């Protein structure tokens, strides 16, 4: 079938994890994304698609973390942006 071996995963981004005080969810997104871009040997402007895993509804007191907000902070303007749930 069509998609077999056409696409690849080429970089992974980690962050500190566990109890990490004084950090926002947004900051973890940005750190993970920047690390994944570097891990793949890419530059931020290479990234033109952004899929943000759904956050649980209403993380109390935090900003609504849309793909557009993340893109702004990553300094990119994706042609495709999506928030996925699963």
């Amino acid at each position, binding site marked *: *079938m069509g*998609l*077999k*071996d*056409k*696409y*690849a*995963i*080429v*970089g*992974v*981004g*980690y*962050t*500190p*994890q*566990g*109890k*990490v005080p004084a*950090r*926002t*969810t*947004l900051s*973890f*997104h940005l*750190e*993970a*994304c920047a*690390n*994944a*871009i570097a*891990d*793949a*040997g*890419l530059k931020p402007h*290479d*990234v*033109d*698609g*952004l*899929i*943000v*895993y759904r*956050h*649980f*509804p*209403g*993380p*109390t*007191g*935090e900003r609504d*973390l849309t793909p557009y907000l*993340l893109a702004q902070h*990553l300094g990119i303007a*994706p*042609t*495709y942006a*999506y928030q996925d*749930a*699963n």
Partner: protein
Amino acid sequence: MSALESGLCRYVLLTYAHSGDSLRRVLDEISGDEAPFGLFGAAGGYALAARRAMHEFHTGPDTWKHIAVGQRQWARLNPRAILRDRPLTLEDYEAAPFLVEPFRLPDNCLVNDGGRACILTSLERARDLKQPPVTIMGLGQHNPSADLYQPGHLTGPTGAQAAFRQALGMAGITRSDIDACQIYDCFTYTVEITLQDYGFFEPGQGAQWFAGGTIEPGGAMPVNTSGGQLAEAYHMGLTPLTEAVMQLMGRCGARQLGPETATKKPEIILCSDNGGVLQTHACCILRRWTP
């Protein structure tokens, strides 16, 4: 994938993050129409599924303890794992307190701060990049979508069965070609029902299948080799997916599948993700690309 396939983009970034404090609050308070009855948190829904499974095919703590202990063995080899320094024995499991019975504390995933991301691109582009490409051989999704009120799928088949069939078909392989699994493990029972629906064992045969270290270092079918969400960290579907990628790239250090852990060096790894209370299911078969 469709964004890449359609030519809309070249490099897609996939990201998940959460600050644990807010995650815990939200998980505890997830409370739709069941809140007046004190059904809070994901644990309640999955524990209802697990209890019915105990009734239907006689699973239970004797199966789940092997999952909790096996994944904790992997966590001991992973410097990133949150429970790296907290070994767990079968006896520790049996002595652990109930939270939402039948689940004991070690049946529940972690609630943590942190984030995880990965990047997808075409194989053509991947060949020129820094890391060895890990290709997507097959994908499948199936979503029973029924609420707790119409509970037919809670004890299987969940969406896992049909999703796996699709993914195998796309990949053109059989189950016996799979070298290791990274299974979404919000609770131990989730691992059991997913592998059961994938056909690794018959309903109710999980206790025998898991016993004796099948999924542990040195085992015949390694599962959740980072420690998983039970012992490494919870990043939704990205905990299993990124671990599969790192294993296939050969970048896992002390927990690397292969001679380091007395396991087979993996060519093909199966990953899963599910949502709701087993209402949605996605699976993905990855392989180490060799031209």
